[in-house]
């Protein structure tokens, strides 16, 4: 009987992570405007909260939020079963068990990452949950906890829980330290190990394996999808929600997707008005929308306006429109200025005190345990991406190039100027080309040495091919691009014009 009507299959190629205090229903409704298909998760709800208080408060949602999964926190099979039945009544598409949040073990309600040490108990929980629903029951966990972080232990965990019938595992590619680190530090300090999850998929091909942790954009999602069944993005999607705009097209093969961040805001109108009428405060909705205009001129004023005004009595739809009036996106594409397509991911070429301080302080605890300073390098790279405007979302490496020059980009009234540091390369060895709106600066640095190969005491320089690419704004006149080079600095001048040329074009570098 049970199997006659099967619930629809949940598509997990891309999902948004459950995040306490962040992915509440307002946030989810907003994110839904950016992608029709991305799977959304609720914040974690503990069995205690659900069974002993009014479940409506935790379970109600807007019907447009589907596909939607409920995440439960708990470790008592009977209670989890009851909560799972509630989830069925509320028509959630999936019920997920949290085995990833590092919570204090002393607390009486045990849940989260500490359960990784007890696979048999998790298996029991999963069985009890599965018996209470026909919908998929999934588990979100870490790759390990404390010293128990071997691959063997991880695969034993997955095997035991899979034996209880769990088919889908969402794995955060970090282990968790149950003591000594705050939950926030536990999301940042332990190093990311995506390879571990790839290996898990290779060893359990019949299971659905979803990768999570540190994924910054759709390019990375596409890459992960070659190895695993799905990817889950947390913080990046919250801070820069517009990155989801292309998800329906790029991940789910659907032509849908919002046309601009502005259009997303306008889509929110009836929801905002209904919610305000029900007694919600504007701020509770708009606090999730602050990152929408990331990278667009006026974004800061938008954020400030909302932060200051949305909390006031009487704040309403007009407040949102007023905030949006600060945005200067007319007649420009979403990314209005010239911007590098590829970040330089080699050892930091530029470094800030701030990045150093933040990274080391954050790593103090890990270092105490591992004393491996090399993992810091990764952290640095990430810190830079965060601290440097325009870098956060370009993370792809240029395959086959050895190094990448640092650049300054300036916009003047009538042109853009790119200045790139390319010391030790003659103009003849530099290639600048322009095709389909992408400007590429590339070439090769050869060693000028006349000396013998031995005798080097110090080599910090990089040699070989280099490349850097830039997306051009539409108003650049491709025919008038010129370049010159002096003292190791190449200057490319890109005059603005009305029309844009699509012909491949080669630019010669003048020697200065």
């Amino acid at each position: 009987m049970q199997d006659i009507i099967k619930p629809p299959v949940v598509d997990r190629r891309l999902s948004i992570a459950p995040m306490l205090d962040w992915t509440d229903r307002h946030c989810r409704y907003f994110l839904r405007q950016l992608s029709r298909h991305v799977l959304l998760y609720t914040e974690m709800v503990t069995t205690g909260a659900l069974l002993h208080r009014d479940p409506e408060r935790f379970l109600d949602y807007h019907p447009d939020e589907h596909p939607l999964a409920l995440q439960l926190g708990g470790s008592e099979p009977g209670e989890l079963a009851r909560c799972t039945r509630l989830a069925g009544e509320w028509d959630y598409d999936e019920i997920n068990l949290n085995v990833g949040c590092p919570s204090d073990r002393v607390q009486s309600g045990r849940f989260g990452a500490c359960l990784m040490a007890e696979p048999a108990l998790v298996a029991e929980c999963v069985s009890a949950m599965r018996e209470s629903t026909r919908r998929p029951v999934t588990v979100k966990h870490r790759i390990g906890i404390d010293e128990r972080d071997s691959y063997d232990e991880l695969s034993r965990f997955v095997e035991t829980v899979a034996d209880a019938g769990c088919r889908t595992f969402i794995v955060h590619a970090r282990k968790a330290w149950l003591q000594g680190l705050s939950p926030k530090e536990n999301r940042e300090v332990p190093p990311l190990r995506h390879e571990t999850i790839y290996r898990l998929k290779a060893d359990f091909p019949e299971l659905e394996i979803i990768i999570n942790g540190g994924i910054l954009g759709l390019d990375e999602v596409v890459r992960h999808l070659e190895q695993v069944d799905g990817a889950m993005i947390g913080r990046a999607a919250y801070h820069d929600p517009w990155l989801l705009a292309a998800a329906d097209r790029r991940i789910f093969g659907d032509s849908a997707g919002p046309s601009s961040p502005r259009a997303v805001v306008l889509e929110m109108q009836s929801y905002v008005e209904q919610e305000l009428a029900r007694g919600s405060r504007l701020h509770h909705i708009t606090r999730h929308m602050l990152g929408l205009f990331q990278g667009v001129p006026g974004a800061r004023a938008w954020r400030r306006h909302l932060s200051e005004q949305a909390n006031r009595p009487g704040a309403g739809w007009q407040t949102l429109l007023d905030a949006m009036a600060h945005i200067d996106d007319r007649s420009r594409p979403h990314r209005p200025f010239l911007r590098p397509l590829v970040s330089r991911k080699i050892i930091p070429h530029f470094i800030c005190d701030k990045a150093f301080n933040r990274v080391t302080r954050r790593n103090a605890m890990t270092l105490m345990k591992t004393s491996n300073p090399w993992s810091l390098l990764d952290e640095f790279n990430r810190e830079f991406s965060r601290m440097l405007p325009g870098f956060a979302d370009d993370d792809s490496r240029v395959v086959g190039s050895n190094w990448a020059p640092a650049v300054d980009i300036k916009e003047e009234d009538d042109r853009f100027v790119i200045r790139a540091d390319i010391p030790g390369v003659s103009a003849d060895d530099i290639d600048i080309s322009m095709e389909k709106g992408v400007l590429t600066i590339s070439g090769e640095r050869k060693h000028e040495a006349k000396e013998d190969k031995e005798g080097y005491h110090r080599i910090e320089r990089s040699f070989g091919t280099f490349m850097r690419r830039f997306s051009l704004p539409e108003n650049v006149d491709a025919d008038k691009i010129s370049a010159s080079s002096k003292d190791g600095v190449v200057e490319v001048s890109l005059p603005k014009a009305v029309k844009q040329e699509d012909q491949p074009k080669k630019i010669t570098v003048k020697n200065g």
Partner: protein
Amino acid sequence: MSSLRQNIDRAWAQVQAGWNNLVSKASNALTHFVHKDEEQSAERRDLLRSTPEWGLLAAEVHEDGEQVTVRLEIPGMEADDFDVEVIDRTLIVSGHKHVENSRKEGRYRITECAYGEFERRMPLPAEVDSSKAEASYERGILTLTLPKTEREKVRRIPIANG
């Protein structure tokens, strides 16, 4: 409480050690650029404020029987902007990298290059005669040729195989 303190102190010590290790292995080239608030135009002051305070001055040190050769990648300078000194087998290269004089006002959108005053110190593998040192600056690379002192040349007689 005091053990927590100790742990944190120890962690910091290790961070320092780790950092030093990292610096010495991978990032010797990391150089601090000090911003002096002397720039005249508002645009240039703005630019300075947004530029990173650290830049990489990648170097290369080569030694043979006669001399030590040092190359330093530091594009966008004038030859006069450098100061080179040798004190006790330590080479000190300092200078001031100025923000490019631009013909027009504008807004900087991306700033990855570092500007300002910098100083880079490098231990030399041998004693050199700084009075005979030569420097050239071409394509953004500073090349220093530092002849060894007679004493060094004598001391470093290669041992023949056999």
